[in-house]
């Protein structure tokens, strides 16, 4: 047990799935029933229509991660699962910072701030300005430290997205999957919120 504790590190789990309602829950349960905290979870459409890509970050031993990977891959709607250490991937997080425009204009050398932190102004309005940076946690944290004294109004950070370094990509396999058997759209629940005149019995 102690041995495993020592070998815990961040793992990036990449999951290719069908776009299916409820699948997020099925995947989340695999972690929660083992009492494993998900540090970061991103899910979005992949380069192939109807196939989604999850990026899940957890801090665990490789043995645990390997078993989790197999349990995730066992789910009917999961096409493929990979896991990698941070050394094996390139990753980014996106952060947005909302500041009072007046304060920024008066007190901060905006130009320097943007240049030194690789930041970008997304919106500049009379009442507020929104900056954006992308990078690793330390990098986006750094700008918080700088902006905090000037009254950071709101801050938000995205989940991690990661690209696997040593991989020719699942892209070609995905295209092959799609060619052999194109995905089908999940039928939307067209009855929801229609307020039709119905009785429960």
């Amino acid at each position, binding site marked *: 047990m102690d041995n495993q504790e020592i070998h815990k590190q961040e793992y990036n789990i990449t999951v290719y799935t069908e776009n299916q309602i*409820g699948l997020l829950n099925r995947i989340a349960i695999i972690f929660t029933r083992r009492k494993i905290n998900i540090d970061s979870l991103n899910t979005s459409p992949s380069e192939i229509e109807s196939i989604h890509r999850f990026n899940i970050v957890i801090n665990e031993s490789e043995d645990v991660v390997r078993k989790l990977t197999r349990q995730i891959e066992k789910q*009917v709607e999961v096409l493929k699962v990979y896991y990698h250490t941070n050394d094996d991937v390139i990753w980014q997080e996106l952060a947005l910072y909302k500041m009072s425009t007046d304060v920024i204009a008066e007190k901060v050398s905006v130009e320097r701030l943007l240049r030194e932190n690789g930041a970008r102004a997304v919106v500049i309005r009379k009442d507020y300005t929104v900056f954006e940076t992308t990078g690793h946690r330390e990098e986006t944290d750094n700008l918080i430290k700088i902006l905090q004294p000037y009254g950071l109004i709101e801050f938000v950070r995205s989940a991690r997205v990661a690209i696997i370094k040593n991989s020719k990509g699942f892209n070609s396999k995905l295209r092959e999957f799609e060619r052999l058997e194109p995905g089908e759209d999940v*039928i939307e*629940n067209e009855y*929801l919120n229609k307020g039709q005149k119905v009785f*429960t019995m």
Partner: protein
Amino acid sequence: METQTIAQEVSEKTAEPAKSPTTEVSGSEALLEALIVEGVDTIFGYPGGAIMPIYDALYHYNDKLNHILVRHEQGATHAGQGYARTSGKVGVVFATSGPGATNLVTGLADAQIDSTPLVCITGQVFASLLGTDAFQETDVINITTPVTKWNYQVTDATEIPEVIAKAFYIAKSGRPGPVLIDITKNAQIQKFDFAGYEKCEHIRSYRPKPIVRPQYIKEAAGLINSAKKPFVLWGQGVILGSAEQEFKAFVEKSGIPSAWTVLGAGAIPTDHPLNVGMLGMHGNYGPNVLTNECDVLIAIGMRFDDRVTGRLDKYAKQAKVIHLDIDPAEIDKNVKSTVPVWGDCKETLPMLTALVDKKEHTEWHNKFKDYTRQEVEQVIHQELNPTTAEMTMGEVIKQLNEITKGEAVIVTDVGQHQMVACRYAQFNQTRSNVTSGGLGTMGFALPAAIGAKFGAQNRTVVAVIGDGGFQMTCQELGTIMQSGIDVKIVILNNRFLGMVRQWQELFNARRYSFVDIESPDFVALAAAYRIPGKRIDDRKDLPSALNEMLNNPGSFLLEVMVTKENNVFPMVPQGCSVAEIRLK
């Protein structure tokens, strides 16, 4: 409708291009048509508000689909499991929304952990009411997600043919499991153009059978051929894969002593010379001790459950492990394998058999025989031939087995009687031991026996149940009464929750905390359900009572009063190594 199914009608129409190739049906009718094409003959269920359209449609299908009205939805799932376990087919269950659906959860969990193929159909409130806390609404999909292999909510009737096809395919393929389909009431009523039903044979993201890698088969055969003390552990995977013949061929050629998990029982007959007994907490002495002495351990279709392995860090550390399993997630999950053999054992076993040498391993077999002798002397002889005035569970099982010649399906509940039945019953046929393995569900046996009889109508089905478990689902006597099914019920009454009491005796200094259970007059209870019965407490009445039960044309309840404080031995105490198995 009276003479042909809608599916037939559709196909006839399709044959004539002038006519439309579709027929307008309701979602409910489409569902029932789908079940017929899937070969379903029996449904276990209970109606209610949200599934009424399906039951209404069922009214016209009673010549093709036999519906068994259970007394509680949990009973429906266990009956479906019993049916699936004896027939090898998919068990089908209907239940309504809300409480009907939540009552399925125990059976789903049981089926999930024991890999039993089930398709459960639940009614759901109108889609327009979803999420409004409508009458009898529960979030069935989220409640059942951890206990199903797959589930899906249908809100539009047009989804039904495809979803039902997927449900059956997923439930029975690969490592089987339970599937739940929740159908909103509007989808059950909605009419749509039914273009016929096609079975599903492929899902893009689903690989039920891993690809067999011949190099691993070769490596495994190499290890087996060089082994001095090889040992086979087999589980239900052999039965689920219908690989009993392939398995027998493998053990007979390789000559390896083979032991079984509770759910693997009967895949080869109990008295087969290469069958050395049962594994696990209450398994046989030799197989447990020698697990820690073998040099090559060959696990086939079993998952190294903790009840089998005992303490993992002291489990078979000396052995090289070959693990054959259809579920890649099982390999290396509990026990690290030296050679993993992914695949369906019906495919992998013949490949392995072809490469292994013909051997006998006589000396190694003699070691098992030595341990068997010790176990017979210290445990088995006493249990089966007691000198006390009171009867033991073991002697009841032994006599039952002798009279049924090892041909009966024995359905057990959970507890001491279950372990005794597994230990002492002789199974001559596969699919004869129906029990709740992984979940250990008390209340399983009575409804499961009902299902088992429907799944194997030509076989004698005997439910062996403890006084505790019987009282968890005894309302299913009503189902037996109404369906007129022939299930023999043996209650082994020790007036205790025996297994818990055994643990309290051995590990809690005999502090018997709430294990003393009172029972009603079971024979009178059966009589209230018009089921004949008998209660015996004298050994001399046992043979005649068993014969009376078995010769009775219909169901019969036999209550046998057995000794109160008897323990099931051998036993691997919790947290101990399998080699530390105790004979007393």
